[in-house]
């Protein structure tokens, strides 16, 4: 088991290395660099001005040198002031020291956000915390509801309950966040006035039922259908097993058979599915946070991408790729742990 986890961690590190290099390459394409320098200078900068800014700040160094610097395996050099010949800090608003040093992701330095004029760490980690709260509430609502729907539908296959719940779950999987968000806002914020159509106040004044229900609802609804269907399939399969029939034949009630015998075995498959939902939830987070103006990870990602904020966007992609790969690992390990018939080599 330990060897399996170690090998998976190795693959994970390799994947992250490849992906960050791809992201690094895409962000540093010529049009993107021009966009960045124009946003840092002003709209009417001449071509020479832009070019000199890019050279001065080290954007014209070799691709691998720059990637190595970001990673922390190649030294970062400070800018040299052409007038005095002294070393000066590259981005003063991040308090970058004016000396040659190894300072990259491996050393814990995520770089400097050119859009928010602060270090990436100072921007990214509070945003991740905010998203963590959102994700927590989404999970708290989504998982029990979807498991309940799945179990109710799957315990008696082919009944009217089963069919109507199945169609309902298909309907929720056909409702992406930007659709359900609009519909819920129209119903609950515009018509009924029960809930706030914006979660902007959640960042400053704290989370309340009034401003946080709509984002959580919107995100949960898309995932519910999928998890419920997987639970139903798993439940249907378990209910046809011999040991369920044995339990019924020895005179146990239907409810107790479902709860004591079927449930534990039927919940193994949904566990994997719930873990693998995280990549989907990441996209959902971006849409919901933009739609309800909640200052979390997704909001930061969109801002970073829209303004070509190189270091911040790299930080965001590192985090999201890590989340995806780590949940995959957990789902594999957890599956083997929950199901003793599976042995990992």
């Amino acid at each position, binding site marked *: 088991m330990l060897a399996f986890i170690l090998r998976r961690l190795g693959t994970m590190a390799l*994947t992250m290395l490849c992906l960050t290099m791809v992201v690094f390459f895409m*962000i540093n394409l010529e049009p993107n660099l021009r966009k960045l320098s124009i946003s840092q200078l002003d709209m009417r900068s001449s071509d020479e001005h832009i070019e000199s800014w890019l050279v001065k700040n080290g954007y014209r160094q070799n691709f691998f040198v720059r990637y190595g610097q970001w990673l922390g395996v190649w030294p970062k050099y400070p800018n040299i002031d052409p007038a005095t010949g002294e070393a000066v800090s590259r981005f003063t608003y991040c308090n970058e020291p004016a000396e040659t040093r190894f300072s990259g992701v491996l050393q814990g330095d995520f770089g400097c956000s050119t859009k928010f004029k602060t270090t990436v760490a100072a921007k990214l980690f509070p945003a991740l915390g905010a998203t963590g709260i959102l994700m927590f509430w989404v999970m708290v609502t989504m998982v029990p509801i979807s498991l309940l729907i799945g179990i109710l539908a799957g315990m008696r296959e082919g009944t009217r309950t089963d069919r109507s719940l199945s169609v309902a779950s298909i309907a929720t999987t056909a409702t992406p966040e*930007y659709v359900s968000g609009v519909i819920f806002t129209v119903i609950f914020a515009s018509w009924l006035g029960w809930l706030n159509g914006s979660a902007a106040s959640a960042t400053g004044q704290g989370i309340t039922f009034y401003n946080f229900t709509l984002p959580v609802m919107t995100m949960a609804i898309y995932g519910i259908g999928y998890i419920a269907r997987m639970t139903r399939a798993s439940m249907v399969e378990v209910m046809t097993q011999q040991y369920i029939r044995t339990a019924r034949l020895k005179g146990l009630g239907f409810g107790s058979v479902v709860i004591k015998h079927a449930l534990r075995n039927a919940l193994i498959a949904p566990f994997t599915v719930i873990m693998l939902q995280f*990549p989907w939830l990441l996209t959902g987070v971006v849409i919901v946070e*933009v739609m309800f103006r909640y200052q979390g990870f997704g909001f930061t990602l969109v801002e970073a991408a829209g303004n070509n904020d190189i270091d911040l966007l790299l930080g965001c992609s590192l985090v999201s790729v890590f989340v995806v790969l780590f949940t995959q690992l957990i789902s594999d390990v957890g599956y083997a742990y929950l199901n003793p018939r599976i042995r990992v080599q």
Partner: protein
Amino acid sequence: MEYIGGFQIFLGVLARFWPVWLALAIIMGASFVYKKKLGLYGQLFDSGVGIVGVGICFFWLFTAIFAGTIAPFNPLAQIPIMKDALPGAIDAASGQAYLFGGDKLARDVFSRMVYGSQIVLIIAPAATAFALMVGITLGLPAGYYGGRIDSVLSFLANLVLAFPVILLFYLLVTPGIMETPIPYGMAGLFFLFPIIFFSALFYTRFKNRPDRVYIQIGLTLLIGGWIYAGLVFNADPLGIVSIKPNQLNIFVAVVFASSPGVFRIVRGLVMDIKTRDYVAAAQTRGESPWYIMLWEILPNARGPLIVDACLRIGYTTILLGTLGYFGLGLAPESPDWGTAIKDASRLLRSYIHPALPPTVALMSFVLGLNLLADALREQSMKD
């Protein structure tokens, strides 16, 4: 400004869709009568879910085909007096009503919804078809040979799958990237797969019958090369096949994002099917590996692949909507549903009527495809 009432709006919408109702009645009626002879498609008409799914899909298909007749107004035309008009407002100049009202740029919401279906129904199925080609062509050898080729291809597929879709789109679908050769290079690579696929398909089957193989491969290369030239180089000698750079960009990004999923499914199916007796029989006969993959394994994997294709078209529609919602790739005035939802959701506090038609349209189309996939799965389970 004069208005028509709610009931008249309802009747007006029903009336505007008359070509769709006509076509639906003919197609559904004919399918229902001859369902015994129509194989898998005919079996769909045995279940309520299947009928509803097929009906919704055909509804949007016919809406896209007859969009010019259904829509009373040009989707881009602005009639200043109709800015933010409520549903049922009558345009004095033409005497026609804005059935679902006007948006903030004074365009007819109903006409935009109808024309939006065209964009979705062209890009989503086409991109899914290309993703299927790429996924099948790479998934067959990965599953059949296993070993190193499988490790490399699976690693690449997992690499793409580990990318959050939204980040991928922010990197791949930007105005800046169209100045670089990247989208064209990727298009050049992806659009090669259908040509390779069909050439291999015909070659392995008919290689001992030169009279047929030359014609078929010649036709594949001619038609494939013609479409390839039109799409990748925008240099169709006849000027029929063409695609705008931003649409090509979207197309490539969507194919890129969804082909690893197809690859994984195909790979899994092949690994399962290659242990069957008929594959062993073909191997004993001395058939070539590609013949076995394309003519023995692939036809037997078609059931799950058809179901997956239906779900995938729906998922691609959602992806297109996401692109529109973030204003990536599609032109800002484009009538597609995602862009319309983006524009309308910004103004939900003041007007809600422009937001509802595109959301309901997108939802119903994806729902139709999902119901269709569900019914297909049920039917294929029965056999």
